[in-house]
């Protein structure tokens, strides 16, 4: 029983990191119908921006995180939107899918070529000390990751719901034609969404890299999990991506512990198949009815 509790908590902890990536994924979809197949690489790369800041430029680690965040928001937010998505968008979904797949490959190879093909250790924000709760061994890192993700997601929800800019972003996502005729700067709102996605990916990167190390090939599994989480939760819902991320974190952990770590990815895949069969719009999703 205490093992079970322990697995649930550490599952929620990794799940909350997956949720950050999945939420960014759904935000991009809502704002610009972009399915970002490079989302995993968006989580992999900021760790290297931070490592460059701290090891190459010699910045203290907290400043290096700020540096990595700024570089990520600029390149994965602004440049990505302007140079990749905006020119492709008029041509439909498929060119964007191809472009983001190509971008993912490019990002992996750039890291391998110009930084290292080896896994890099990455300093953790929280200690790996543990404490006992009802016999379960819980690490500070698990609780810390969960708390940081929770704060980020709550802050995002408050921003989207409680500020005029956030509501203009919602209007842009839900009905871009109407947003335009009301005088909302639609392109700017879409850009904000891309920048927020880059920031969420950076946060996920900071939290997950101490666990899985920073490695060029880490994007693939993370991207897959974010994609699964978004589909399981409901593609058009921030809350859905959150639930999907947490659920997959837990199932991932339980199947690794009770079945075999070889079947680790099988659990989430089975969940995906069940969800698609029983509730294709996702757990919290609503079927999409875009009005003309």
């Amino acid at each position: 029983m205490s093992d079970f509790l322990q697995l649930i908590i550490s599952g929620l902890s990794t799940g909350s990191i997956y949720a950050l990536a999945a939420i960014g994924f759904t935000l991009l979809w809502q704002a610009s119908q972009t399915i970002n197949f490079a989302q995993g690489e968006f989580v992999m790369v900021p760790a290297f921006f931070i490592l460059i800041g701290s090891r190459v430029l010699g910045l203290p680690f907290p400043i290096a995180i700020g540096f990595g965040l700024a570089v990520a928001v600029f390149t994965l937010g602004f440049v990505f939107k302007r140079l990749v998505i905006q020119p492709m968008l008029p041509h439909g979904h498929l060119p964007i899918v191809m472009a983001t797949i190509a971008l993912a490959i490019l990002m992996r190879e750039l890291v391998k070529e110009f930084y290292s093909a080896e896994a890099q250790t990455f300093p953790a924000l929280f200690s790996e000390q543990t404490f006992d709760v009802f016999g379960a061994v819980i690490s500070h890192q698990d609780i810390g990751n969960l708390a940081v993700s929770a704060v980020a997601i709550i802050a995002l929800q408050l921003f989207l719901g409680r500020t005029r800019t956030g509501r203009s972003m919602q209007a842009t996502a839900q009905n871009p034609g109407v947003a335009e005729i009301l005088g909302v700067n639609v392109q700017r709102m879409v850009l904000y969404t891309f920048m927020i996605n880059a920031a969420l990916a950076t946060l996920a990167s900071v939290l997950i890299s101490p666990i899985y190390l920073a490695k060029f090939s880490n994007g693939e599994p993370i991207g897959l999990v974010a994609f699964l989480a978004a589909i399981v939760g409901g593609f058009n819902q921030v809350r859905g991506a959150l639930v999907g991320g947490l659920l997959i974190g837990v199932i991932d952990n339980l199947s690794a512990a009770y079945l075999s770590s070889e079947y680790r990815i099988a659990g989430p895949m089975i969940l995906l198949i069940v969800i698609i069969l029983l509730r294709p719009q996702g757990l919290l999703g609503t079927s999409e009815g875009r009005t003309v």
Partner: protein
Amino acid sequence: MLQLKNLYGGYGKITILNGVEFEIPKGTITTVIGPNGAGKSTVFKAIFGLLNVHSGQILLEGRDVTGRTPKQMIGEGVTYVPQGRNVVPQLSVYHNLELGGITARDQSAVRARIEKVMDQFPMLREFRDRKAIELSGGQQKQLEVARALLLDPKLILIDEPSIGLSPNLVAEVFRTLQALRDDGVTILMVEQNAKAALAMSDFGIVLELGQTRMHDRADALLADPRVGQLFLGGHMEEA
């Protein structure tokens, strides 16, 4: 108040407007009627800066506003209520209204204005915290009209307000528009429901094939047999 001079325009290379010309006076309701494909909605989009004007001029109170963006047109005191459903579905009624004033610098004035508009439309006050998608079709249309009033516009372009509404709701929307006209707002409306629309308007314009065919007092158009013929499906030349 609003004057179109020999306006040509359309979508990309396709020309829909072939020299539309008319002028509407301040504080009046003018209804644009015409068969499908005549370019009625296209005229509105051209005025509001949503599509390219190839040639010709749009004058607002004598100033050339051709080629402005929607945001600039809002700044000029023009608002646009397109056809169909135009609410932001997951935002509350209140926040939909607030979006109507999103371009304003002074947001406290917008809040005061929202209160005033909710006085005009008590239903909106009652449902202010509901999501817009939860309102009925007629209520959503009222929300759209109310939202278009948020910046105290001089000119409202309203495209087919009666679509999907029951006859008594149509009458209600029309009464709202007449009350606005009486407050000095100029209204330019497109309507399929030509008879009812002309009956509540001051002036009428008949568009066909992207050109102005007739422009007269609404009661004169109503009495004109050629207009009746047009809406029985024939072309005006045959009348």
